[in-house]
């Protein structure tokens, strides 16, 4: 499939597709982080996770509309506010969902799968009723739209850089929150031994609720990031849900490093393949390879060995 390209062209293709893959990687990673935290913590699969991305994306859109109409001076910076707004809105709705639905289903993960699917249908229809079926895009500030000429053939878009930056910051924040903070200690204690954690005075119900909400909040940020690479419709988030599940499972649900590595490899494989064969086949091949590998290592790539 490399015929007709010179070596330097192939290098440029790889670099640029690689960078396009990086944006996809960021969305995957942010989605997967939230999903993995929730799954690792309470063995709950949240089928409505994609809708939290959509919430973040619509929040960003609303923010841009408001800024454009009422506060043009904010246009250059609103995007950062939108990221925060996406997080807060998704976090709050996630908190409510845990409180009213998820907490009753902790011992029945398969049933949670069905219930959250129902939730996702309701949310999608809700978006459709509120924002219409047509896709919308926020007006991005000027500075975000430019690109950075790295060499004659390689050109890196600024919005991509921003996306990577936000993702890196958020991933680090999650890492510190989970592995360096008091709250993270409680989360990990609950994950490992719920009964013991309760006996040690940890309010595990509250830990669960906040963890779930946090996972949703991160998906909200993913939604804000998402608006810079595609337009938003009622079903935007649900398009990512299958890939994100595979990212989580492939990485070995309990491992943060595994999630990053697996998001990276799946996004890059898909994006680079996409240049040479058509998009749908690239996706088919990537997913098929992932499933193939999972059959060899069902516990994921980075799971450790314990007594069961």
């Amino acid at each position, binding site marked *: 499939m490399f015929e007709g390209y010179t070596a330097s062209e192939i290098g440029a293709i790889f670099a640029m597709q690689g960078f396009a893959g990086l944006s996809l990687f960021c969305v995957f990673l942010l989605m997967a982080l939230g999903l993995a935290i929730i*799954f690792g913590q309470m*063995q709950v*699969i949240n089928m409505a996770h994609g809708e939290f991305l959509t919430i973040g994306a619509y929040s960003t859109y609303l923010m841009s509309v408001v800024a454009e109409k009422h506060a043009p001076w904010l246009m250059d910076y609103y995007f950062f506010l939108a990221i925060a707004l996406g997080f807060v809105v998704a976090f709050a709705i996630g908190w409510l969902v845990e409180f009213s*639905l998820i907490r*009753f*289903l902790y*011992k*029945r*993960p*398969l*049933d*949670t*799968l*069905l*219930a959250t*699917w*129902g*939730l*996702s*249908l*309701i*949310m*999608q*229809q809700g978006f*459709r*009723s509120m924002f219409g079926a047509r896709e919308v895009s926020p007006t991005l500030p000027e500075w975000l739209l430019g690109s950075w000429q790295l060499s004659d053939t390689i050109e890196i878009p600024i919005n991509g850089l921003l996306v990577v930056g936000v993702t890196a910051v958020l991933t680090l924040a999650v890492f510190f929150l989970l592995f360096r903070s008091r709250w993270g200690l409680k989360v990990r204690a609950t994950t490992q031994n*719920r*009964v013991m954690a309760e006996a040690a005075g940890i309010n595990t119900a509250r830990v669960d609720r906040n963890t779930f909400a946090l996972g949703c909040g991160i998906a909200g940020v993913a939604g804000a990031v998402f608006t810079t690479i595609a337009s938003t419709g009622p079903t935007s988030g649900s398009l990512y849900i*299958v890939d994100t*599940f*595979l990212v989580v*499972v492939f990485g070995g649900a309990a491992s943060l490093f595994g999630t990053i590595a697996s998001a990276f490899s799946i996004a890059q494989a898909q994006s680079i393949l996409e240049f040479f064969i*058509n998009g*749908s*086949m690239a*996706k*088919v091949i990537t*997913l*098929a390879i*992932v*499933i193939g590998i*999972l*059959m*060899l290592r*069902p516990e994921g790539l980075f799971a450790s060995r314990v007594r069961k």
Partner: protein
Amino acid sequence: MITLTRRLVGSRSDLAALLVLAAVLLVVMPLTLDIFRLNLVGKYLTYAFVAVGLVLCWGYGGILSLGQGIFFGLGGYCMAMFLKLEASDPVTTAIQSTPGIPDFMDWNQLTELPWFWVPFESFAFTLFAILAVPTLFAFLIGVAMFKRRVTGVYFAIITQSVAAILTILIIGQQGLTGGVNGITDLRTLLGWDIRSDGAKYLLYFLNAALLLACIVAGRYILSGKVGKLLLALKDKEDRVRFSGYDVSNFKIFVFCVAALFSAIGGAMFTLQVGFMSPSFVGIVPSIEMVIFAAVGGRVSLIGAVYGTLLVNYGKTAFSESFPELWLFLMGALFIGVVMAFPDGLAGLIRSERLRRVFGRPPLAAVTRTGALAARDPAPPAASASADAALPHAPTGTDR
């Protein structure tokens, strides 16, 4: 002989339920509905094959597959390929640049029938393929997953991904599969016009009879040792394994049976509706079929049929007049069934009947539905099987 009959039809009340269902499907529906409506019911009933299969593999086996559309679709596509080839004879397709191949291939500049289409010129091979292709595919997935002890949520996600892959593949390979429109414009089966009213009546009865046969077959499987082993597996998988059973084989078996039933449903769908498309293969139809089984009661073969009919009736009724409302309702149905009625219609009827007879359901009868025994002082919090069990015992267990 007596034992065989007992295993096929079950107890007296089971037999009564089966006869009622047979009467509803074979007598009441055909007598009260016009052919358009009856054909619609026939279409719903093809989904019921999938739901009945799910009762076996999910309700009893504890294996939730979110990819049953794969098998429904494969069965349907096998049938559709045969019918399409019959509809694409050189005379009818004379205006094409390559006469004698299906129209969508001609539109996609194919000049020759692809190799995997060729055997579908034979009806005998088609019948064989309808049953064998989906079952074999299920067998491969089952071996790959269950031998590696992939179960629960992981299995659900992976089957869902396979459904997604298959849909993308079918849509992407337009020239080979008809793409997003599917295989349409199917007219005759061995020269017999399947679009005539007479054919629709006949196909409806064939469909209903096959469905009843699947239920009886399912009951045979469940009433014997395999059924007990499946219940045992759902409860204490390790105990079964350490009683000398290769657990994965039983899971593969029940998954294959579910796939086989779905495939029959798929083939009957193609015959009755006259086309097959990727929209019956993917994630959404697959998970909707799970909810059909859940509404009927996930451990009731007969309930699955009523559940399917009820949900689809609701869908048709609502989506005609309030399309927006329907999605909200569907979502609420998913949540409501799981939260409030994990035993579905069958559970409601069962507890109602018991309440009338005994004043309250006796404990043994309640636990028999698969609920955890409420008297167990400390249900293990981290029980490996906590997943598939149904901890929501109906009322009357708390004494």
